[in-house]
């Protein structure tokens, strides 16, 4: 005759038969409280992460005629934290978020001043002002400096600023999408990025870097 696992003293599950009603209710109670606590905590935490934010869209149209963005005179859109640079190869857009702690670097025509870096080094990084000024960006928070190709060369910034996608809209104006990076370089990478938006073909050359 088979052994009843619950009722027989030798049964595998005999210990379950010895649980009193009070013990059973206590176990169920604590189990329930634990499950509710874990579930509740998880949901409260989830509640704190908004599924959607009412922040402005990452993409925006530039209301300035692209032809007015000339070599040596990048377009600064400080409120959108973007700078559109024009050089011999075409357009590119730098996302002005300092890689140190996220402030907005300001455009400057004297980026090498006080850094001990020669103007020629800055000018060699890309476009320069009509008088050969060393263009670049300087962060107001902790003094990081960036060449015009967004490569960091001074201050606490650990890596170059990112480049974001810029395209021609059908009406001829530029559209920047800050949600789409085209160049993202790691610390120490000083490679001049080759990504450009060609103003004649209206297409980018697709030479993304690190994305």
């Amino acid at each position, binding site marked *: 005759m088979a052994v009843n696992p619950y009722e027989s003293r030798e049964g595998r599950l005999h210990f379950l038969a010895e649980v009193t009603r009070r013990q059973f209710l206590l176990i169920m109670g604590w189990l329930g409280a634990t499950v509710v606590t874990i579930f509740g905590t998880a949901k409260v935490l989830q509640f704190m*992460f908004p599924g959607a*934010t*009412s922040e402005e869209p990452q993409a925006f149209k530039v209301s300035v005629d692209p032809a007015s963005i000339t070599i040596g005179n990048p377009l600064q859109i400080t409120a959108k934290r973007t700078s559109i640079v024009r050089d011999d190869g075409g357009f590119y857009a730098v996302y002005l978020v300092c890689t140190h702690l*996220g*402030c907005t670097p300001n455009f400057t025509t004297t980026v090498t001043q006080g850094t001990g870096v020669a103007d020629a080094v800055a000018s060699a990084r890309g476009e320069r002002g009509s008088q050969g000024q060393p263009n670049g960006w300087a962060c107001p928070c902790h003094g990081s400096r960036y060449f015009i190709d967004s490569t960091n060369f001074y201050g606490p910034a650990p890596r170059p600023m990112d480049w974001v996608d810029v395209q021609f809209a059908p009406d001829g104006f530029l559209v920047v999408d800050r949600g789409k990076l085209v160049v993202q370089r790691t610390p120490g990478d000083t490679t001049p990025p080759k990504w450009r938006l060609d103003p004649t073909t209206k297409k980018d050359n697709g030479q993304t870097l690190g994305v």
Partner: protein
Amino acid sequence: MNASGSRNPVSKFMSQVWGSIFRHGLPTTDKVAARTALTNFFLHIHPVRVKKSAIRVSYTLCLGGLSFFLFILLTISGLFLMFYYIPSVDQAYQNIKDLEFVATFGLVIRNLHRWAAHGMVITVWLHMARVFYQGAYKPPREFNWAIGTLLLLTTLLLSFSGYLLPWDQLAVWAITVGTNMAKYAPIAGPYTRYIMLGGRNVGQGALIRFYVLHVVALPLIGFILMVVHFWRVRKDGFTGGL
């Protein structure tokens, strides 16, 4: 105010009211003094008896008491600021200007709040240093030391969250920098920043979150911790000067 002999029902009633609030007259003996301290809510935080050496100002420099005083001052002045301040990115900065230039004594209230906040960070640090250098964190007070570290953290978080509320350039970029520091933490970093800001940038989502933390959540946590802290101070007793 003992009017038990009076037959006037009004004064009898008044003396009954007075007597229900103040259970004992001014103490004349040590025993009455002890009973007065024990039965009064506001006095019961004080020990009934204490060593003279333990209340010497040069022993504790009253740094904990000063911190608590500043907390009370911050609560009251903050309450007044809340009558004018609206945590909206369109209005917050103007509200601060209104406080400074439109509301009578608004500038005083605001600066009281500001300087008391700076002062509290200083006194809490000094209090901690005093406790450390006197070895007052040792058993049986190790639990209260732990509570104290949480109170220090609460104080610093209150200071940090309050920094954003004026919504000026300094505030926005300080919080940008501060939350980006949090982002450097491994794995949890980006999530921490997102949950703090309620978005990707310092904007309306961040302002309302910091406001709620600053005026409700953190003061409440601080208050509860303080209650436990003071309770432990009483229970652990005063050693007095060595």
